């Protein structure tokens, strides 16, 4: 589940404003797509599958970048609760 944050676009990148922690995060397009897929209803595997579909690549290709983005979002406390 995503922590409440305001999302902005800057070029092809994303900017997340964490209003509770008063922090700002820059997301590359992959991390931005992962953030959008983390709607609270998907497991990590489903997020990988969703990212693979979005970029039309095999899941094995999408997985490393996707898991790295998930790890970043979790480390920043932007995701609340485990995603499967």
């Amino acid at each position: 589940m995503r922590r409440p944050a305001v999302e902005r676009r800057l070029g092809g990148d994303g900017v997340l404003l964490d209003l509770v922690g008063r922090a700002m995060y820059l997301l590359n397009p992959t991390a931005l797509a992962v953030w959008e897929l983390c709607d609270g209803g998907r497991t990590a595997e489903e997020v990988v599958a969703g990212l693979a579909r979005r970029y039309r690549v095999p899941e094995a290709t999408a997985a490393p970048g996707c898991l790295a983005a998930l790890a970043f979002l979790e480390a920043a406390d932007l995701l609340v609760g485990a995603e499967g």
Partner: protein
Amino acid sequence: MTDAALLATAAGATVDAPSAHAIFRILDTRVGVISASVGLLRQWSAEYAEFRARPGPAEVTVAVGSSSDTDRPSPGEAAVIVDGIVRLWDGADELFPPLWAPPLDRELQLRGAAVGRAGHAVLLLAEPDEAITRLAVATALHGAWLLAYGLVPVDPDDLLVVPYPKALTLSRQTLEDLGIDLAHPALVPFRTAAGGIEWYAQPDALLGSCWSRVAAEASAMVFLEPGDAGRGARLQELRPREALARLTANLLRMPADFQAGMDALVRLCGRTPAYRLLAGPPGHAARLLEDSLLA
């Protein structure tokens, strides 16, 4: 509250201590100073001469109880009063101007300087030091207007760069680099906290150029970085996300309204070209700015 009572608020002051008074208009806010230290008020008056305003009520008052003319007040020896609420100064933030106190905290506050021509401003962003002073002065010598020095305030609503005409602070080395004689009549010496001597100067008296008093649209953001003295100055374009990261690092403090402030930073980076400037030898960077961004 009487002046004496304001001064008594600051630790160490006596109710009948003599005090000096001044009013400054800073970021559209009237800031009053009541100071038992004449030396301190004299220094602020030199540094912020262009901000002095006619006597009258103040929205923010800085009261200094310490009467020493040579030492800066210690935490607890001064207070800042806004809307009748007295806050003893704890030394964590600058005492004057108290940019952390509302309503002075409304604008985005970026470290650096701004120069311009024809209603457009180029933001020169870096920690205030000799390099940014040299660049701002050298650019003014080429005919640009100075819009802000020491701080670049940006209105979070319309993203206009707000004039901030703080006096230039010049070291001996900077004056030598710029070929300015130490006996120039525009130079006002002062002793630094470290015991050295530096000089304040108003650019119009020193350079013959003038402050611009009109808010201007940001046409470029330039982040100063140390260059290789053996190579010429270089401008390298930055992607918006790189500009945003650097801009955030150059914030003097987080905006009081976090979301509005951060939104403004994102919008500024989305529409304003940004560059890193590798300075190179003195003089090269000013010529490069002149040719590339101010022509």
